[in-house]
């Protein structure tokens, strides 16, 4: 899923283009990640503590690696960097391609709902909160 797919059928309200420019510059104009799909709740963890001398990466890439020293979802990365999810997906694609982060896609069973052990764990976890 990317944020752009089937939106043509919908009528969007006009927004001035201001906020789009920075994310656009951050990805150097790329709308799609080089690899990966990145669900909102895919979990991201850095594989290294610092990126060192990797070339071709910008400050936002570094910021993601820093943030993901602790595991974060794609949605959390976007919220903390104050960037749209689509932009963060592109940046994450760059980092996956360089093996600088690992990503765990959310679980989905063929039936669409997880098995009882997951439900029970969540129910017990909520009760214990």
């Amino acid at each position: 899923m990317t944020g752009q797919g089937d939106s043509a059928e919908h009528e969007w309200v006009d927004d001035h283009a201001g906020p789009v420019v920075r994310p656009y510059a951050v990805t150097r104009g790329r709308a799609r990640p080089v690899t990966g799909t990145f669900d909102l709740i895919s979990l991201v963890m850095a594989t290294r503590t610092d990126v060192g001398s990797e070339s071709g990466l910008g400050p936002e890439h570094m910021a993601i690696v820093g943030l993901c020293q602790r595991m974060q979802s794609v949605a959390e990365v976007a919220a903390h960097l104050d960037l749209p999810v689509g932009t963060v997906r592109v940046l994450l694609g760059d980092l996956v391609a360089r093996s600088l982060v690992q990503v765990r896609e959310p679980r989905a069973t063929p039936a669409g709902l997880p098995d009882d052990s997951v439900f029970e764990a969540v129910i017990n976890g909520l009760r214990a909160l």
Partner: protein
Amino acid sequence: MDYGPSERPAGAASLPTAIKILIAGGFGVGKTTMVGAVSETRPLRTEEVLTETGVGIDDLSGVEEKRTTTVAMDFGRITISDDLVLYVFGTPGQDRFWFVWDELALGAIGAVVLADTRRLADCFPSIDYFEGRGTPFVVAVNCFEGATQFRLDEVQTALNLDPGVPVVLCDARRRESSKEVLITLLEHAMKTREARRRAGG
């Protein structure tokens, strides 16, 4: 959704699994309040920027002419265990942005539809959406002061709900109350799954 080769470097197995629940309902019904009540951190906000053409942005000079819109989603996180993290997402306005709803609903365990008895019809689009998708949901009546008290079976009838759909009262500002709603949803989703399995689905 499965592990693509590029998303599965060695060691990925040690990361927890994430699951999500949606909080839907009309404007001002308490969605963001409920997200905040259950979340272990303050609610976060994430944005999707959508382009009207649907093909994305392909060159910088064109940016000014593209019609774009920003859809914001509030969400919170509850760490269940080392293996499991629950995310709770408030859905954006239910009169449009269905494309974003589809993205949110994909893989969701279920949804809470918040209802305000002073404006019950406001939650119809959410109910229609989750019924249409087959996403398990519960209706939680958020008790605002000054609202006439209805019996839950009256709400059930007024919303024309399938009798199996739980309807509960809540106070979205209270953590305990909101937690109970989520637990009701999870139990309902579990039953739904079991019923579907027995029906050979």
